[in-house]
């Protein structure tokens, strides 16, 4: 922990920065902590009103209302799932048709080589299977997970974000971002343990 002109910054990440090749001069943003979700939401709204656009929060559970407060857009996951799911449907039908009617046509029990009736179960299952993978992998993809490291982890209390603290983040690439001011802004909306976090 070192102090420059009264601003607390988190440090001691020299060697990590080495490894990850992150410029020492780069700043990730300013992070402040709250102890209750509703406080976070209120604060978030205020900060947004100040005109910040690049905001984020880190919470132990999904805090309702925070998305609107910080203006986080709707998830696109639904579109991914439905398209991949339909691929599953197609795969199943094509498989059953090609296998039974084209590649190896055999009369079995006097039934047609291909028919929708007996294709339904497998088709349904494959649709579901594809959709499920789409949902999970899509979610991870959109979230850029898995990842080994993230600058926000440099925040001294980042580990509380998965326990009992609710962190508000003003990111450095916000046009309105200014380390000094932003710190003050966060403090002003009641955030505790505000730190400028290096990128």
């Amino acid at each position, binding site marked *: 922990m070192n102090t420059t002109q009264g601003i607390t910054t988190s440090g001691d990440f020299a060697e990590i920065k080495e490894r990850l090749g992150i410029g020492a001069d780069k700043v990730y943003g300013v992070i402040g902590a709250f102890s209750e979700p509703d406080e976070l939401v209120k604060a978030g709204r205020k900060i947004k009103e100040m005109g910040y656009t690049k905001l984020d929060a880190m919470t132990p559970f999904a805090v309702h209302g925070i998305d609107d407060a910080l203006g986080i857009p709707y998830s696109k996951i639904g579109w991914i799932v439905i398209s991949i799911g339909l691929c599953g449907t197609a795969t199943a039908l094509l498989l059953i048709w090609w296998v039974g009617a084209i590649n190896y046509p055999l*009369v079995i029990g*006097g*039934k047609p080589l291909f028919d929708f009736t007996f294709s339904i179960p497998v088709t349904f299952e494959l649709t579901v299977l594809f959709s499920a993978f789409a949902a999970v992998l899509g979610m991870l993809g959109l979230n850029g997970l898995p990842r080994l490291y993230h600058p926000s982890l440099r925040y001294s209390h980042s580990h509380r974000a998965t326990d009992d603290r609710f962190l508000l983040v003003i990111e450095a690439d916000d046009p309105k971002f200014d380390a000094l001011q932003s710190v003050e802004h966060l403090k002003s909306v009641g955030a505790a343990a505000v730190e400028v976090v290096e990128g």
Partner: protein
Amino acid sequence: MSLISIKSKTGPKYWRSLDHLADTPEFREWVHREFPVSASEMLDGKSRRTVLKLMAASFGLAGLTACRRPVEHILPNVAGIEDYIPGAQYYYSTAMPLGGQVTGLLIETHDGRPTKVEGNPGHPSSLGAATAIQQASVLGIYDPDRSSKVLEGGKESSFPKFEAAVKALSLADGSGLRFLSGLVMSPSLSALRAQALAKFPKAKWVEYEPVARDNETAGTTLAFGQPLYPHAQYDKAKVVVALDSDFLGLDSTAPLPTKLFSKRRRVHAEEDVDKINRLYAVESQFSLTGANADHRLRLRGSEIPQFAADLATGLGALPGTLVVVGNGSGDKRTKFLGAMIKDLKSAGTEALVVAGARQPASVHALAYLINQSLGSLGTTITFTKPPAEKVDPNALSGLEAFRALAAEMSSGQVSTLVILGGNPAYTSPADLQFAVALSKVTNSIHLGLEDDETAAAAKWHVPEAHYLESWGDTRARSGVAAIQQPMIDPLYGGRTAAEMVALLIDAKDKKAYDIVKNYWLNQWPGAGKDAAAVKEKTWRESLNAGVIASTKTVENIKASVDAKKVAAAVAAEPKPVAAGVEVGFYPSAAAWDGRFANNGWMQEAPDPITKLTWGNAAMISPATARAQNLTDGDIVTLSRGNVKLEAAVMIQPGHADNAASIALGYGRERCGPVGQDVGFNAYLIRTSDAYWFGQGFTIAPTGKTHKHATTQEHGTIGDQGVNAEHQNGRPVVREATLEEYKKHPKFAEEAQEVPALESIYPQVIYDKGYQWGMSIDLTSCTGCNACVVACQSENNIPVVGKDQVMRGREMHWIRMDRYYTGAEDDPTIVEQPVPCMQCENAPCENVCPVAATTHSPEGLNDMAYNRCVGTRYCLNNCPFKVRHFNFLNFHKHDPDVAGLVHNPDVSVRMRGVMEKCTYCVQRIEEARINAKVDGRRAIKDGEIKTACQQTCPADAIVFGNINDPASRVSALKKQERNYAMLAELDIRPRTTYLAKLRNPNPELQA
């Protein structure tokens, strides 16, 4: 063939390992251990697995010998084929004698090893059919438990040593010399006998078999004053009365009677309706004949003479008027008798009364007398003189001669006894103490297939050659002679009876081939320089045809019955005693007199009536069971005088009350592991005075119980009236009387209660090329089991053993279902052969996840064994349960010797796969190939015969192309009686049935 290398290299090694293995204690322990309660692949103690363990020991022997071909030239039945095609099957003719009858056979051989038995169409007592026992006899040749060594006092010896010992015998005039053989059916052996008795004038030759037809011949002697062979012409009879005669079953070892009888049991055209015959059966044990009878009366064996007498009296054949026996006119016996008499009278010359081999001479004589009085003597029953060799005064045959011999032996008058085949120490009546008597003989020589009870008691034992590996000749009762050809050199170096005699009397010809051939060459006339050539030609023709043309059937004799003598004899018959239980003996349908006890196929072939496998039981009627308060499997002591036997009872609906019947041939003490200690030895209570029926037995429960291995759920009576032995109102077997049939010709279709389901899919149309189908006529089918064993032989179906049968895992692709109908005490039986129905909309196919069973364009329900993963879903979904699963590796210990019997055209299935009837697809393909070879012609109707169809003595099974309206099978499927089982499921079976017709006497219908 790789076996050759075995011969050269590993063969000798295995000789050693055989001895080694045979002595290890663990191994002995294994053979004798009880089944563990739990499941394990060794669980079937005395079963195939154990057998094969033993077989494994001796496959070196097989290696030594399997592919040796006889040096002498045997000729294929198919005329003209001289050049040999490896892998192709060839048929050679031979003949199998059993119980005083001979059946001509064709043996299918592959690369010099016999694999399958079929009837010889050219032989008068086969006409192309073969019985279950004949089908199974091919397994006997590869039986590794067959005797393979000359034994002296139980110790291993050798042929040279034996021959030296024989030379050393001082027989002088033969006063101490006795021969004991089975019934001699061989002319050349008879000739040798004559020579032998000429050389040793004081010697005697006794013929004895525990199951013979002595009473029949004695009957003719009594009736006609001379021994004659009766020939019942069942195809000429309209009304047949069987007095304790099981001519469709155990009374005939040849398929002929069934062949003839079924001719009148086939309604395929209008005129047949009037031709159909009517069968009355009077018997104690439920026999196949009883099962096929239109009317059956259950009487104790000892009551039948009186019944015959009453019948004769009623018909006026015997003097006096019929005194009604029994309690008044309501009594079934009386009604039966009355109706029968009327019926016989009206049938007149078309009537036929036959007596069973178990009935005394007088009853046979009575039967002839009745036929005479009906005028049917000479039409429905004809007589021939026995061939010269059989009336040979030197031939002492039958029980009396045997008793005399035993007496001589025990009194020490016999110094040398030559036992030519058979196992008298086991099969002789208990009171004769044969084994004891045998021990008094200084030089006892036993020629036998097995190292059995007799071999153990005799001084010398010489392995006998199996009939399929020996030269010989036979003469059927009709007089037609046939040459026995060896299919393979004796596997274990056995000798034939003729060779033994030749050796003993130091005859000119010592080898069976020379003995037989020279005998016949001398029989045939021939003069001039080309005589030899002509004879040679005749010889070749005889081998080809399987019968010797020159031995035409002896012509019929006109003879008349001496009524007085018969009446006297009848009067002399002992009256049945009321006290105690009557015990009747009958040959086992599987083990016969015990000689097939080590044959796995026979042991596992369910008894046609009781469905009992792997054992016998004391059959008693439900009433008797109630009276003695016994249930299935209770072990009782049957005792009389100083003989007694512990045997398990089995409740046999329809058995005569106050009587028990037990099959002979079980409870072998010294036998291969298949037959060892299986069942109960009835010979222990069979005495010469209670030979077929014993009066005054006591039956006492022991408190012990025994588990019967039946293939049909047994003894479930009382389970809410639901009973697996009845059809429970289900239209499975559909039957009607002739009258009903005339009224409702479509009764079979009408029997289907549930409306047929309809598919949501369009029906696949099978109208191209061949479309295979099968029709089974339940009217002519007698349920004899021949098809079951034929299928087992053709399709390499494994034997699973007693324990697995009890677990319901038997593998027969075609099974014989038996249902009782009517009262438990006196039911009727229907038999139904059930192969795979080859459904067009097969439920089994739909559910197979890996498409291992699919439909062929020719309508076959194909099963790809090597695709099957064994989910058993198809078995569950098969409404007929004709699919069979390899729960264990039933071939695990298969050594080469077991493999030798396999049909190379059929794959042997591994553990974990499903198998089922294929309509003998290998035969279909063979026909297809032949058709191609003959210039791409179409396959002719009847060209393909499935194994079951080929052997069926009743010609009940017809297979063919249903796409060809001209084919026989299509014609049959057009019959009004044609029906498909469970058609309501919309499964469209390709196998359909012709509903059963019975022809009961309207008078007895009430």
